[in-house]
């Protein structure tokens, strides 16, 4: 059976503080899979997610979701940022944070409907946080914080979920619960992409893998990707020439493309 392409990243080059951290990344991901994005520290995993979500501007290349631009299918995507990226001392309850998953352009300036509240409750129930709904987020453990973030994402009722390191700093029970939840999403036909750095558990957790080390090392079913040669390539250090060139680009502030360069869409590179 051939699954529909959920996500296509086409020749994507992106820089962080002018230093290129992703070079010409190009892959397609079928829908209905649980996909791990793996690579050493600084290999561009988070940058890739941020580019897919259009939270930063790419130097070149594009991303298509179900064959469309992000803005046309925004509500079919859900993004879970790293847990540490927010201030958990913010004055809000668990429920208030999960309700943020129902905020969207269509209800701008308006209150949430009761159908939204139902979805929030359902999401809280799925991650086992309903009992803590009125708790202040500053009182949560790391695992509970992550559950709240995942509940917020579930409340968005998307088709593709992009999660940045959801297993970092959580207890074993939470890790198991989250994984079970993600697998059930996959079984419902959703596509789940997870930034993950623990190779030990990766093979067991995911069906598909994307190996990154500032360049794409491999992307495909785990049986094809997860072998010692590929892992050595991904984790065996950066390509010296590539990182030297990147340093020059950053230092000299070279633009990576001419100002009006536009990538042609389609199979131009075939």
């Amino acid at each position, binding site marked *: 059976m051939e699954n529909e392409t959920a996500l296509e990243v086409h020749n994507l080059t992106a820089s962080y503080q002018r230093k290129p951290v992703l070079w010409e990344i190009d892959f397609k991901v079928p829908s209905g899979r649980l996909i791990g994005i793996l690579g050493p520290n600084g290999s561009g995993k988070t940058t890739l997610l*941020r580019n897919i*979500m*259009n*939270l930063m501007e790419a130097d070149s290349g594009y991303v298509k979701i179900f064959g469309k631009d992000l*803005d046309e299918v*925004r*509500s079919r*995507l*859900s*993004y879970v*940022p790293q847990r540490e*990226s*927010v*201030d958990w001392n*913010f*004055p*809000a*309850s668990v429920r*208030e*944070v999960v309700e*943020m*998953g129902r*905020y*969207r*352009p269509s209800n*701008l*300036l308006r*209150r*949430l409907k009761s159908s939204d509240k139902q979805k929030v409750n359902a999401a809280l129930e799925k991650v086992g946080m309903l009992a803590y709904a009125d708790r*202040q987020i*500053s009182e949560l453990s790391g695992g509970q914080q992550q559950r709240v973030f995942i509940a*917020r994402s579930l409340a*968005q009722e998307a088709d593709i979920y992009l999660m940045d390191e959801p297993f970092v700093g959580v207890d074993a029970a939470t890790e198991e619960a989250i994984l079970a939840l993600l697998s059930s999403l996959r079984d419902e036909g959703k596509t789940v992409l997870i930034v993950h750095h623990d190779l030990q558990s990766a093979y067991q957790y995911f069906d598909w893998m994307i190996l990154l080390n500032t360049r794409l090392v491999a992307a495909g079913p785990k049986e094809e990707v997860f072998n010692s040669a590929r892992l050595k390539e991904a984790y065996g250090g950066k390509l010296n020439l590539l990182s030297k060139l990147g340093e020059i680009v950053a230092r000299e502030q070279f633009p990576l493309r001419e100002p009006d360069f536009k990538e042609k869409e389609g199979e131009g590179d075939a």
Partner: protein
Amino acid sequence: MHDILAFFSFSDPTVRIVSLGTVFLAMSASVVGTFAFLRKRALVGDAIAHAILPGIAIAFMLSGTKNPLVLMLGALVSGWLATWAMEYITEKTKLSSDTAVALVLSVFFGIGIMLLTHIQHSGSGNQSGLDQYLFGKAAGMTSQDLWTYSAVAVLLLLVVLGLYKELKVYTFNPDFAAASGLPVKSIRRVLNLVTVLAIAIGIQSVGVVLMAALLITPAAAARAWTSSLKVMLFLAALVGGISGLSGSLISYLSPAMPTGPWIVMTLSIITLLSLFFAPKRGALSRLLKQRRHSQKIVNENLLKVFYKLSIEKEGEQLELSQSELQAERAINKADFSAAIKRLKRKNWLLAEGEKLKLSSIGVVEAKRVVRLHRLWEMYLSQRLNLKEDHIHPNAESMEHIISPELEALLVKELDFPTQDPHNSPIPYTN
């Protein structure tokens, strides 16, 4: 007293205008400032306040009037320019954001002072009073000012209420807001705009130099009392309003006293009291909590000693004298007698003449402490593979911390052990 009554009767139109004006200004600045506080942009507010000065001076020079709308337009333009400059410098150069803030603050303020001095010496009859923007001069407020400022204050409150949901998610997690397709750029622009507006009207009462206090301290005080954003906004407005009112009251009672600095004084006092006395988050409640914990430790240690000396050693509930107990545990006399008093009050110890005896509920409590100590020793030796002579000190402190839930987990995980690693029995209550 008579004066205070006269003030609160608001029969004097000047009193009415000045006090209402300052209350509105302070409230709107406090509400808008809450978001700056939560976004950790306290100093950005300070920089914008200072940067507004050249705008006011230029607006006056171009128009020749002190019409509040004209001056506010000038304030708005230069405040906006300053906001943009700070964002641009942070994004496009290698300078850090605090450098950008300091740079914008000092450069704009410097230009403002320069222009102000120029106006002061140019001798046009209308210029006097422009320097009130430095330290504020609420007493000089006219009814035209009042109408303008209250209209702006109401507008700001409406914007914050209308955009409440969006401002909340944008402040908590801007990336998520953007990923959800919310128009974060517009939200940021609106938030910047209301911040500049609130500052532009707020400096009328406290001046550019003290404006940051009006923006940030009400939020800091409010945060001490609540963990709900809604309540926090309300409390910040309340704190701001009370300070505005008391500032005008003080300067009414003693006309030599300036309004602005007294507003800030009142704010600071309320904030300091809040940071100290607020339940849960206040310093006092933390101190009390620590004291309760250290008392609990002494209590439990004494019970444990009592239990070991009597039931465990002799197999019965002996009566012990205070000196026998004290000999067993190194503890200073004052702490010791205080602990004995507490244990008696809890009915864990009973006095028998000069001697003391564990009550039946005291025995239960003592067993609990001894049990936790020995269970934890078991855990340390089995799960952490620590040697027997290394586990006691750690258990001495953990026995006071382990909660009933953790105890249940411990018992289950260790499968109901009956002896600790030193072969002492683990006392269960039933």
